[in-house]
């Protein structure tokens, strides 16, 4: 077996997640409290609002070798700060275009809404992204 093949066999996707404090972070708490099991590949960074998520954070994470990035917030209309999530949604459209334009599979990034009462929804989102990222394989910029 070649070194690369060994590495691939041992490879586990690393996913950076940005969760808003009021909905999705609490939703992830609920998933835990409800003992809902989901893939352990995600590392959550708590932000007050998805509106706080600078597109640079997403690009930086990919640039530094994350295999996938999740942004999870309150449902549109339910933002704790009334409309921060809508700002994120607007940025996301541009961000996705930029990511695709750079030749990165859009399967590696995900924007989702999961409320504080939707532990299952949060877990399902993580599961789906992890599976997609696993299928896409390890990520590293071609030019490095």
């Amino acid at each position, binding site marked *: 077996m070649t070194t690369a093949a060994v590495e691939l066999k041992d490879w586990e996707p690393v996913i*950076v997640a940005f969760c808003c*404090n009021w909905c999705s972070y609490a939703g992830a*708490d609920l998933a*835990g409290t409800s003992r809902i099991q989901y893939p352990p590949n995600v590392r959550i960074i708590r932000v007050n609002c998805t509106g706080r998520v600078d597109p640079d954070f997403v690009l930086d994470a990919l640039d530094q*070798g*994350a295999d996938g990035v999740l942004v999870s917030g309150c449902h549109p209309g*339910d933002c704790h700060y009334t409309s921060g999530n809508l700002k994120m949604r607007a*940025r996301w459209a541009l961000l996705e275009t930029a990511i695709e334009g750079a030749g990165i599979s859009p399967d590696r990034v995900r924007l989702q809404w999961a*409320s504080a009462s939707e532990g299952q929804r949060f877990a399902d989102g993580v599961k789906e992204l992890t599976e997609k990222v696993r299928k896409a394989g*390890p990520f590293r910029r071609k030019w490095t």
Partner: protein
Amino acid sequence: MGSGESPKVGVFVCHCGHNIAGTVNVEHVAELASEFPNVELSTHFMFMCSDSGQALIREKIEELGLNRVVVASCSPRMHEPTFRKVVEEAGLNRYCFEQVNLREHVSWCHMKEPEAATQKARDLVRMSVARASLLEPLEVKTVSVEPHALVVGGGVSGLRAALDIGDRGFRATLVERTGNLGGNLAKLSTLYPNNEPAKDVVDRMSLAAEASENVTILLNSEVTNFDGHIGNFEVTVKNNVTEEESEMKVGTVIVATGFDPFEPIGYYGYGDSPDIITLSALEEMKRDGTVLRPSTAQPPKNVAFISCVGSREEGVKGHEHCSRYCCTAMAKVAAELREEADEVLMLYDDIRTFGKGHEDVHRRARQEHVIFSKYNKKKKPAVKINDSGIMLKWNDVLSGENCEFRPDMLVLANAMVPPEGADEVAKIFSLTRSADGFFNEEHIKLAPLTTHTAGIMIAGAAQSAKSATDSTTQASGAAAKAVSLIARGEVEIESTVASVIDELCSACHTCVTACPYGATSIEATKGVEVARVTEAKCHGCGTCAAGCPSGAIVMRHSTDDQISSMIAALLSSAFVHGGGEK
């Protein structure tokens, strides 16, 4: 501790009994963490939140001169306030504390993968240590509290709350959308468990509120504008009859907007026959005199009830939880109808007469020979309507028999649902809502009466379906919360607000359009236009900082550097393997 001092981080990993340590190798995580940059001490303990756990943190801060503390335990939504207080007691600024969530986000959701869970725990601690090293102490600010409370909703919950605040000697303004006080309670006949007329209860409270010199009642009125922050809210109330608007300042708000009775369209033939009615409609009939069959105006002889209409249903029109009033209300009215009717049948899913004195009501219905039959939840009772009337067919679960009954009146025990206008109320007061639309409390056990908007309390059926007894209990609790805030006279506010680095600002207005609260504006200082943040208006969402193209906005306690350091700490570790995009 000055911000220039080099960071000395203490890491405290919690076992939480078996909760974390049962899955995550906490000793190993603590050992690894001792090697992370700036870590002066890394240790583990059975319960960090216990008195001895808290003492350990204080002791180590003093002994080793720690200036940043990382506790890896449960969700910060649970114990961040606890540990902030602990570090403060040891002389640190509360914003120099950082919590890692190893329980809700690791051990409880990866129970069968101890190795991966331990790796995840290690990574999360590494990320938080990196962030902690960049945390800055922030000034803790206090603001004065306007000694005046706004109560929204003049039902039984709002009345109770306003009265309690008035009794304590503080001003309360009660805003009610309709022209009457009493809300849904005023539509009922008599109340369980002691058969008191609902009107008497409502009248006693309304008269007391009207007589109180501290309580102002505004009928036919709605809150149209709401601004400010805890202690100092500015409210605009509009009278919908006179169209007049009044403005007031309040320190705190209690939202008691109640519920609407669920309109069970699509359930059990509702709407197809005038003799199929809701329990709420039956109650109104009783309140106004006698119960008559709508189609004939004669007293009904054979009455059937069906329970849980719109309650305990996931993902459909009503809501998922139990409405917590209908079993007892149904048993009570069923027993009363037996005085006139030949047969009264109660089709139930489960009987939940749970409250004090409710079992007596249930027993009385049994004594009056009300027929109880448990229906099959998966195959609900079928209602057919033809010329000869209503035909009810169901499977009695306990006997296994298929049964039939021809009621001349069918009563559906309908759920409580969020009232019309709940969307607006949620927006005005920035309240979050559960999946079934009720307003969320801050924490179901630790803070059941406060909301995520500081200074705003909830009470009664606005929070979830419940009986008048539970509603008034909550209302008194919410009033106590409001009063304690007012009585203290001042309140600490979060220092986690945005600020502008003038030199970097190009006055592009992006932050002005991004801010949901109008807290950012462009002002000319010495002839140069730069962005300004009105701190009292800033809620700390950070949307401006994310939008700023010049990096000119610093979102305190959530700075670009602090967030980026977490990303770097995770990815600079041993994770990156080869590969490459296809």
